[in-house]
């Protein structure tokens, strides 16, 4: 194992992974490996992986293309939707450009309607995601998973066998297990790293296309962090990060510019220990039963279980959050809502009640977008919240 890089350098490398993988993606394309672009955690990545395709996340995290998007879309729309559309339209994101097929789901209204527009100039396939988790919903979603497989077969002229899907499920399970092993390091008190660094790794890992290599790499990183933590000394996180209030971050997906929230919290003396949202536990908490008699049903079950606010009701978010609050000794919860994200915004009411009444810890929700204009206020708000803890 190379030990030439310091831990901060390793974190930075993960941070740059999205960009660094442009070249890898290009090389893969040249070798004829298909790319499937996705938007949402509900997508069963096992299916495209089973046919040897690469899966890449297209959720855009920068405000750069919003003005272009606003030529077609209303301004009062979630920045994630606008930015994603903008990148697709301007072809500024290479991953959009590389994607042979873009797959969306009927999640929130903004995304649904955006896919309709996107399909005018990109090959788009939309899976019909039910908005509840009832047995009927599972039935429908299972059919959708099978239909998605058939779509890939016809679109790319391949056959996908059950065995290939099972194999992909095992690979994904191993990846999820590795990522869990990594973020579970944060159960340590004091935590062994800042939430910003945790996030860099979780986000960067989604842009590593060799899924089978991920567990080894993450495991090495975990060992390294543990060793530095044990070693102690003045510079050890054990000393430097001691005494910080421990925060759980939940809400709309964050990343890119919205990391400003994590930074504002941590610059003001707090410590994010766990991400419940789509950049964290929501996406990797549960495995697929790869040995189930019906692998499609197993996939459907696993993915439908995700506790996103587009589900009604959405008990699984509360369940997962409750468990995380206990396991990570969380002192307070911060709910990050992207502007105009109605489902998460409405849900703040229930989440606040759950966090403050049932869990008895402070809760703060805040609305933000992809601009940097609110950084001053954000800092004050986060500092005040931390002072209160």
């Amino acid at each position, binding site marked *: 194992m190379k030990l030439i890089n310091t831990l901060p350098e390793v974190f930075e490398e993960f941070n740059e992974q999205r960009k660094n993988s442009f070249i890898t993606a290009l090389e893969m394309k040249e070798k004829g490996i298909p790319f499937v672009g996705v938007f949402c955690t509900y997508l069963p990545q096992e299916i495209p992986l089973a046919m040897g395709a690469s899966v890449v996340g297209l959720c855009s995290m920068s405000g750069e293309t919003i003005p272009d998007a606003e030529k077609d879309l209303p301004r009062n729309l979630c920045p994630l939707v606008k930015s994603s559309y903008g990148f697709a339209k301007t072809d500024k994101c290479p991953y959009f450009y590389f994607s042979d097929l873009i797959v969306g789901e009927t999640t929130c209204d903004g995304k649904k309607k955006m896919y309709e527009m996107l399909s005018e100039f990109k090959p788009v396939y939309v899976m019909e995601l039910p908005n509840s988790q009832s047995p009927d919903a599972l039935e429908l979603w299972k059919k959708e998973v099978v239909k998605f497989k058939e779509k890939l077969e016809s679109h790319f002229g391949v056959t996908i066998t059950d065995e290939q899907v099972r194999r992909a499920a095992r690979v994904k399970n191993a990846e999820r297990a590795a990522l869990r092993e990594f973020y579970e390091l944060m159960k340590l008190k004091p935590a062994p790293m800042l939430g910003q660094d945790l996030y860099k790794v979780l986000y960067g890992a989604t842009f590593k296309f060799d899924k089978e290599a991920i567990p080894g790499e993450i495991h090495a990183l975990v060992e390294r962090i543990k060793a530095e933590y044990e070693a102690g000394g003045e510079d050890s996180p054990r000393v430097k990060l001691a005494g910080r209030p421990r925060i759980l971050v939940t809400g709309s997906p964050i990343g890119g510019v919205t990391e400003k929230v994590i930074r504002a919290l941590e610059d*003001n003396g707090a410590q994010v220990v766990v991400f419940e949202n789509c950049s964290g536990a929501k996406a990797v908490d549960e495995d697929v039963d790869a040995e189930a008699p019906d692998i499609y049903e197993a996939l459907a079950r696993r993915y439908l279980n995700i506790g996103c606010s587009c589900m009604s009701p959405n008990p699984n978010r509360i369940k997962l959050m409750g468990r995380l609050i206990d396991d990570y000794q969380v002192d307070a919860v911060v709910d990050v809502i992207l502007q105009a994200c109605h489902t998460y915004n409405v849900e703040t009411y229930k989440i606040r009640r759950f966090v403050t009444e049932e869990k008895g810890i*402070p809760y703060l929700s805040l609305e933000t977008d992809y601009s940097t204009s609110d950084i001053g206020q954000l800092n004050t708000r986060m*500092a*005040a*919240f931390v002072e209160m803890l």
Partner: protein
Amino acid sequence: MLTLGIDCGSTTTKGVLLDGDSIVETAILPTSARPRERMAELYGRLYRPEVECTVTTGYGRALLPQADRQVTEITCHARGAAALSPGIGCVVDIGGQDCKAILLDRGGFVVDFAMNDKCAAGTGRFIEMMCRILDCSLDEVDEFVRDRRPVEITSMCTVFAESEIISLLAEGHERGDIALGVVRSICRRTAYFAQRLSPAGEVFFSGGLARFEAFRSALEEFIGLPVRTSELSQFAGALGAARIGQKKRPAASAG
């Protein structure tokens, strides 16, 4: 023990020199576009060599190099208000560019807060706009609206409210009636905003507008709880900062 608290807000910069429980001196300056200079000036005016700790707050809190600690205006307003009016359960502050509501526990510590910093409609800026158009000086606002019949202002946004006021004038409404309408509209918005925290007990009204009875009584009406102010309301943030300076905690968690 002598401590100094300086609150650099968007409109005014305030300072309090505190000796234990008694205020030795206060000072206030317009912030204008020079928060750094104003803080330095105020510091120069109030500082004595015996001062053991200087705490800054407000949006310009990072701009005074001599400060020992920086604490947010939320915490400072809460601490200052609890000192000025012991036993209160909530603080409402209408500042120059934002508005906040803070919920306190019995010990005067912050348990929850809400800030409206996205929109100027419930802030001092709205009043400045009104005074400009209606040609009334802020200091005279109480007399200006006394015994008036308020005209309802419906616009939610400062920019639209400005045109609404202009059309009301064109329709021949009295300036004082319109002004009272504006005062009530600000207080109504602020009260609704504060009610999201479900306040109980007495409310302390801090910030520059708290010295006007017109605002206090309208706020009380909409919030449905007794609203207290103090002659020193405007200094609540600076006083809170000075009090925080008395507890010589290490600056670890300071913003």
